[in-house]
């Protein structure tokens, strides 16, 4: 029984880490630009597929480093060419645009890499279990949790201590004033979008090692990421992080006692938060 509980809670935490990684990217873009990026799951899939293509040339570690940057590059381009035109307009339009993008990316990956699930090689020493009692505790899973932790820590260091990060946070509060102070907000939003997409790409490389690689790999992650943002509170990055881990752990614990409700529990949590505290756990009042 302990084993089962530990297994599911740990599993929930891993999934929660993915939700958080994805939701942080979504949240960054939403906070600064007011755009809900529906194509986020698509960028995640691109990250996984690019890594798959790069592994024969660069090895697993090389692909892990390079692929998210390539995805971020695509993100910068997409923002520059398409999304930039919609700032300041009704949020309806950016929603529809990223919606169309999500369709195009899903179909595009299917066209290039095929609809079948692809095998994804992770180093064999990483896929070995660490202990015989807790057989599910493979090196890869521990490694994933560590890497997500490092990535999230790095994100918060960037946001708190670098010039770019401070400008992003300031822009989230009041973009007009930041612009008046001489910051090029077009570039700022562009880089911020790239940063968000980088996180999606990183999540894609990691998730493909665990969930396998199909064009729809992002689909199952994007809805919980929305919920992570709603539960954590719009406008708050620590809230988003907490929301992701929270719903991951909650669905893990529910799996132990009532497996068929593991999906439902996160929606129940969302409903509860909306009833008790509509702005989310860490959300600011009156932001939306």
């Amino acid at each position, binding site marked *: 029984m302990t084993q089962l509980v530990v297994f599911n809670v740990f599993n929930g935490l891993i999934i929660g880490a993915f939700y958080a990684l994805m939701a942080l990217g979504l949240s960054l873009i939403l906070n600064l630009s007011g755009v809900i990026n529906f194509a986020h799951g698509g960028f995640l899939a691109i990250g996984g597929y690019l890594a798959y293509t790069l592994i024969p040339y660069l090895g697993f570690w090389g692909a892990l480093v390079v692929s998210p940057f390539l995805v971020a590059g695509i993100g910068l381009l997409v923002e520059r060419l398409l999304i930039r035109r919609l700032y300041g307009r009704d*949020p*309806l339009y950016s929603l529809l645009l990223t919606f*169309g*993008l999500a369709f195009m990316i899903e179909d595009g990956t299917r066209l290039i890499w095929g609809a079948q699930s692809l095998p994804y090689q992770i180093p064999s020493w990483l896929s070995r279990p660490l202990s015989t009692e807790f057989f599910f505790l493979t090196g890869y899973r521990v490694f994933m949790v560590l890497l997500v932790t490092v990535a999230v820590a790095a994100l918060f260091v960037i946001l708190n201590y670098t010039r770019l990060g401070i400008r992003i946070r300031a822009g989230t509060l009041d973009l007009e004033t930041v612009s008046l102070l001489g910051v090029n907000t077009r570039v700022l939003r562009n880089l911020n979008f790239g940063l968000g997409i980088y996180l999606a790409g990183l999540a894609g490389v990691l998730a493909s090692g665990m969930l396998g690689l199909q064009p729809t790999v992002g689909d199952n992650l994007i809805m919980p990421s929305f919920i992570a943002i*709603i539960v954590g509170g719009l406008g708050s990055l620590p809230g988003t992080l907490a929301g992701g881990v929270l719903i991951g752990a909650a669905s893990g614990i529910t799996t132990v006692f009532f497996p068929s409700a593991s999906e439902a529990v996160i929606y129940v949590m969302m409903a509860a938060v*909306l009833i008790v505290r509509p702005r989310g756990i860490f959300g600011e009042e009156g932001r939306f």
Partner: protein
Amino acid sequence: MPKLDKRAADFAVWAVLLSAPFWLPLIGGYVELGSRVLIYALAAMALNFLLGYTGVLSFGHAAYFGLGGYGTAMTIKFLYPSTPLAMLVGVVVATVAAAVIGPLIARLRGVYFAMCTIAFGQVFYYIAFQWSSVTGGDDGLSAWQRQPIHFGFATLDILNNNKAFYYFVLAVFAVCAAAMAFLLRSPFGRTLLAIRENERRARFLGIPVDQHIWASWVISCFFVSVAGCMYALLSDFIDPRAIRWDQSGTFVIMTVLGGMRSFWGPLIGAAIYLVLQDYISSHTENWMSLIGAFFVLIVLFFPRGVLGIIGRKVAS
């Protein structure tokens, strides 16, 4: 637009719809396509009630569309083979669900409202997908048929006669369109417009804004569920894809394409979208990319929609 023009436009719309089964086959269409356009048009017009006339962005209308469809399908399959009863069950189930979820989201605005409607919509998708012993899961609900409607003095055979089914859909569409037009012209509808134009001012005038948004949401979901019932009847089939978020996106793009804030806009949008989709999907397997590109192009170059552009030309 002058009043006379509006009358003429209404007359033209009804003339086209009433005669559609006769000229559609002549230009390479088919009667089912006409029925499908009407059904989607009703869904998009219902969405427009909320989106265009109340100014609230819902991206989760597919849920109530699908609930209506599943209610209809399950009633005919498991309970009692009667089309009107099945539609009644579908509409009641969907409207009650919307009424219950409404208070949770009526306080939210803008993107936040959109996100929450999407997320709540997915709940029903997962239920339809996972609970396969009842809903048929991914395979959907088949092996049932819409039933002829008995009026006592006559029977409308919508099962075997395509044209009869088309006119049945048109009749329901007409009643719903008239009801929406009536509501929009009533003081209640005018209040919704006031909320859309300036929510803060409406609040200062003492209008209970959240309650009005809740009511508008429920009305909108009611009409979308009627469309969902007929969608299930159209092909005697329903599957979870009718509830998924991409279906909600389809309703929104139809509304935008035809022209938000104009009454007949969603009808025109639905017609263009479905004809195009019908054509593309019969010519290429990669219709998804093309539809996606279509979304992007509309947003970038055509955001006012067909009627929005015509209205602007007329005004200038």
